[in-house]
């Protein structure tokens, strides 16, 4: 009975710890970058939330990261937060930003919130350009070849029939 109680207590403590962890992560906030991969010169949408307990909603959120991503000092643009602490902004990656992966964090009320999302800057535009409409691309030649062979086969069958018919 005592052992059972101990196990239940341990379980309760563990559950509480997990809940507390989740609560503290939720308390800090969240951030996401969309799309997560973009060429230099491209624009991304950064959105997230900073808890109003940690930082009053009157304070704006400022995105931060590497100085190559947010020149000259690593501070990106700021956005106002709503009463829930949510914010969103668009950011155009400078053409000078080298290809690579960058952390995008957020500051609020003079401190780092301690959360980050990853933004990958590609060396150039994504994929290959769509530079053709197909006007000179001919369809597959196979159906035509099959139709042609079929016609000739049928013709030879008729030739054979004609020979037979000519016989008395």
């Amino acid at each position: 009975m005592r052992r059972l109680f101990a196990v239940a207590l341990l379980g309760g403590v563990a559950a509480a710890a997990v809940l507390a962890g989740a609560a503290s992560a939720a308390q800090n906030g969240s951030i996401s970058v969309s799309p997560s991969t973009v060429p230099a010169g491209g624009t991304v949408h950064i959105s997230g939330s900073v808890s109003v307990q940690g930082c009053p909603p009157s304070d704006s959120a400022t995105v931060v990261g590497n100085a190559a991503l947010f020149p000259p000092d690593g501070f990106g643009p700021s956005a106002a937060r709503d009463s829930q602490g949510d914010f969103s902004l668009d950011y155009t990656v400078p053409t000078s930003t080298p290809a690579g992966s960058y952390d995008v964090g957020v500051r609020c009320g003079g401190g780092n919130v301690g959360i980050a999302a990853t933004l990958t800057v590609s060396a150039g535009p994504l994929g290959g350009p769509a530079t053709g409409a197909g006007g000179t691309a001919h369809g597959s030649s196979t159906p035509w070849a099959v139709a042609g062979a079929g016609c000739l086969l049928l013709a030879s069958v008729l030739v054979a029939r004609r020979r037979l018919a000519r016989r008395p």
Partner: protein
Amino acid sequence: MSISRNRGRLTRSTLLLDVAIVGLSLAGLAALAFSRLAADSPPPLRVSGALLATSPSTRSAQSPRLKLPLGALRPAAWPRVPRGAPATLTISAIDVHTGLVRLGLNPDGTLEVPADFSVAGWYELGPRPGEQGAAVIVGHVDSREGPAVFYRLGAVTPGAFVSITWANGSEVSFRVYAVREYAKAAFPTSLVYGETPAPELRLVTCGGRFDRQTGHYVDNVVVFARYVGDGRHG
């Protein structure tokens, strides 16, 4: 009497057979000929040249006959590229002379392409032609109606000259060193757009099979060229 009637019926049916035989033979030959035609006329492509990832010193040592001024590899000798966008592109080897529009990015991060099928476009978020790095110029291989500005790009061979001019009369020239075809699904972004030790140029169009489901070609043809000097060459 009965024999001749019989013979007449025979004649009529053999005549019908003859007509059918001749018609089918002609249709069959025509279809076969068309199938040859359909198979034989994609845009031209000759994959050629070498993509050497060598340092500038080994490159000039390896190809002493290349009329590359030694100083071309020093920034001081690189062209003074005008600030504005390049205006025209000339590839004499395939009779291409076209104006250039400016291209940016689509919202999904892919490269914009010229709205006009008869002109090429310069990717303005990358280097200008003649600046250090790879300047990228793209053009359509065809429209819905027929050949477009870069229809014959795949027929360019190493050694061909490409010249770029600006509205103020400035001109820089490049020399082709390789022609390649890549699947769009595996487009070598770093090789095409990535940094290079000297000024380079990339000409890009479509190639390979045309996928009627997606309405796009499945490959891209890329021509690689290196800066050779100011003014027109070749």
